């Protein structure tokens, strides 16, 4: 506000002339707000915050930033869990939330064109009367944006059967870091050239800014069955998951929650979960009626053979919705246990789920921390939440140490660093655990092809030692820029 020094007068006045008075915020409150996302990373620092309403404005903002030698960081709803949207080094932040129009829905071609700020669930709600939906369904889908989904290649429970965001994005109109505009991909199935669309999706804002996205829309299933299986041990639940996949069943979703998180969820939303079980498995099969009926029966049988103490089939849509509400509010329910959480979203081969889970509990115990597990078991995507109160002295160090051990355990089991949350800044320095120097070098070559001058969301994805990743420099605010 008035008390904030504004050494960037020239840039600010240029941005204001592009965006109008209501399209630019430079006050400290707004800048503090966009300096964070849903991760624990709190060392972000934002420059001017832009709220463009069109691709032309995005382009003009990027060109202005280029002229002033400033980096640009795109931002959706800020629900990311890896710090991907956290601005480093006081860059220009481009918040795309006002570009939130669904531009076109073509049911015949099964395509929708949307602006990046469209909220994930709003698109599905819009499509519902037509019998379609947008398949990626992250837990944050009530808030997160399609642009953010594209940036992070987001997943969600139903990606087990339907695939993550990249399988649902046909084309992206992008403002590149130098201000050029390019349409990547296309509505045709085999667009000419390299799959730059595929390269862009999951680029975490380091390859440019999406201004228009063509997404595939998916017909609603003809039949759905949701089962809740309760187990006396988390290992039994995990082994059931492996057995289901091994039997050749591809459920729409297979989610596991352990007792602690189930209790918290029950207190929070009263979803009807049993609170006396060590773990619950939420399984959903959808598709055509025959496969759904058979699939549900076989999952129930496999569960019982692996020690399920109860198997409940949701009787109707209301019960089904309640069960899913419980699952999707799990992260929120964690606040019942402690105010803060820190999580990794490593993936392990499904056969290693039970073993790695046991290790996760042991790691937490060694560091005297509470861990709760709620995860996409079907594709081996763990979400161990270390739950804590950051006001407790020294706890952050223990949390980070435990997190690091969880990552190592997952990778040692043949896993991957991130299944759906992305790398951002929080997981960046773990990348060398998964990739060798040559591998990272080639990822860097891809990044530099899009952004030769490191203007787009610097400091993300690739670890220190690669270009565009010098965190020390980024944390020193450039001269003449806000502190």
């Amino acid at each position, binding site marked *: 506000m008035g008390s904030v020094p504004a050494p960037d007068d020239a840039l600010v006045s240029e941005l204001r002339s592009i965006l109008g008075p209501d399209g630019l915020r430079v006050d400290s409150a707004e800048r503090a707000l966009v300096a964070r996302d849903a991760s624990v990373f709190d060392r972000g620092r934002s420059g001017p915050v832009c709220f463009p309403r069109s691709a032309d404005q995005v382009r003009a903002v990027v060109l202005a930033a280029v002229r002033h030698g400033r980096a640009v960081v795109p931002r959706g709803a800020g629900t990311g869990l890896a710090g991907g949207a956290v601005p480093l080094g006081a860059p220009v932040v481009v918040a795309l939330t006002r570009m939130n129009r669904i531009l076109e829905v073509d049911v*015949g*071609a*099964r395509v929708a064109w949307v602006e990046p700020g469209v909220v994930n669930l709003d698109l599905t709600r819009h499509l519902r009367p037509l019998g379609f939906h947008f398949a990626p369904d992250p837990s944050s889908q009530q808030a997160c944006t399609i642009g953010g989904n594209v940036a992070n*290649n987001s997943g969600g429970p139903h*990606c087990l059967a339907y*695939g*993550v965001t*990249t399988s649902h994005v046909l084309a992206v109109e992008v403002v*590149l870091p130098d201000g*050029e*505009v390019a*349409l990547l991909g296309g*509505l*045709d*199935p*085999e667009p*000419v*050239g*390299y*799959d*730059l669309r*595929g*390269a862009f*999706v*999951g680029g975490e804002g380091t390859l440019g800014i999406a201004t228009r996205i063509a997404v595939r829309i998916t*017909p609603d299933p003809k039949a759905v069955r949701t089962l809740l299986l309760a187990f006396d041990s988390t290992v039994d639940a995990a082994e059931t998951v492996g057995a289901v996949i*091994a039997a*050749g069943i591809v459920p729409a979703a297979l989610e596991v929650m352990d007792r602690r998180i189930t209790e918290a969820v029950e207190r929070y939303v009263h979803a009807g979960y049993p609170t006396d079980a060590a773990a619950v498995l939420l399984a959903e099969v959808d*598709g*055509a*009626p*025959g*496969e759904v*009926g*058979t699939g549900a029966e076989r999952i129930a049988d496999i569960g019982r053979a692996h020690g399920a103490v109860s198997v409940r089939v949701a009787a109707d849509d209301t019960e089904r919705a309640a069960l899913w509400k419980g699952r999707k509010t799990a992260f929120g329910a964690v606040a019942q246990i402690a105010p803060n959480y820190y999580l990794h979203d490593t*993936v*392990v*081969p499904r056969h290693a789920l039970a073993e790695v889970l046991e290790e996760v509990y042991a790691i937490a115990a060694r560091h005297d921390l509470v861990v709760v597990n709620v995860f*996409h078991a079907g*594709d*081996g995507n763990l979400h161990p939440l270390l739950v804590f109160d950051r006001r407790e002295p020294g706890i952050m160090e223990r949390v980070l140490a435990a997190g690091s051990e969880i990552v190592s355990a997952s990778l040692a089991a*043949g896993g*991957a*660093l991130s*299944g*759906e949350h992305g*790398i951002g800044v929080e997981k960046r320095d773990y*990348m060398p*655990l998964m*990739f*060798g120097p*040559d*591998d*990272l070098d*080639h*990822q860097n070559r*891809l*990044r*530099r092809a*899009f952004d030769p001058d490191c203007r787009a969301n610097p400091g993300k994805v690739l670890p220190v030692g690669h270009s565009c990743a010098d965190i020390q420099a980024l944390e020193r605010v450039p001269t003449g820029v806000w502190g």
Partner: protein
Amino acid sequence: MTGRSAGAPGSAGSVAGAGVDREVAAWAEEVGSDGPVAAVGSRTRWGLGGRLASGTRLVSAPVGVVEHRPEEMTVRVRAGTPVAELHAELAASGQRSALPERGGTVGGALAVGESDLCALGRGPVRDAVLQVRYVSADGRVVTGGGPTVKNVSGYDLPRLLVGSLGTIGLIAEVLLRTQPVPAVGTWLTSLGVDPWAAREVLYRPAAILWDGTSVWARIEGHPDDVAAERSALGRLGRWEVVEGPPPLPVERWSLPPGELRTRPAAECGPGWIAEVGVGVVHAARSQPPRPVPAAVAELHRRVKHGFDPAGRLAPGRSVLAGAPGAGPVGGGR
């Protein structure tokens, strides 16, 4: 310069580098780091992207299925393996992949990037690759993607390699997603039925083909569902069970699926067969080069230059060959 062997010493300590096998490492030595080189498979689509410069050394990727894990629904396979051989091995466990089986190799299918005729049901080839190991222009083994069915760690090199025609890296080995083979599958054909009406009534068809008069549909799944789909089709007209799809002309067009009603008849010449819902059209006439905007062409140049600065990989060949506006993409600078 001499070729550097796989993953070592640089990759020590990383999980990705740890898994590079001897065959892949040996192939990297063979590719080396000097002189024009290109990978050759079965030459089923050899002419795509233009003619290789004379003097280009040809190398064949290593062969063999490394590991099929039916319970993970993944298979690790070396790029020189024929797709048919891969599928025979997967079929023994009731699985398959989304790769097209047209007499080619795994690496060839991926470098070309053309999807199977049943892409509507099985998904595009680009979604099949979880992890790729390729030999870079300087003879190193690079691993992109991850070892699990779900992974967003870092940039998506596997998708960049699919369809790259061997111009930015030579695919040595991949980890592919597998799919269960459905219990029942059948091809049906009908004369005069509207293919979009067929699309409308079918829930998840594997393929719908149309030549302007006849429709062919591939239905797969649980026996009850296939029976239900057949009776739904029956309400549209008379259908006959056939052995398989009709013979396809050799050229391949890529059109937006929303434009298939009119464009094939107007542009593709006689004998075309369109994949409804997908947009691929098989025709005797080839698709005119598609224009590429300057900004996209420039990105292609930077990608090619970044991955192959000396232009030694498949010189003469370009993924934008002939595209109006593309300018030279292949080759060094």
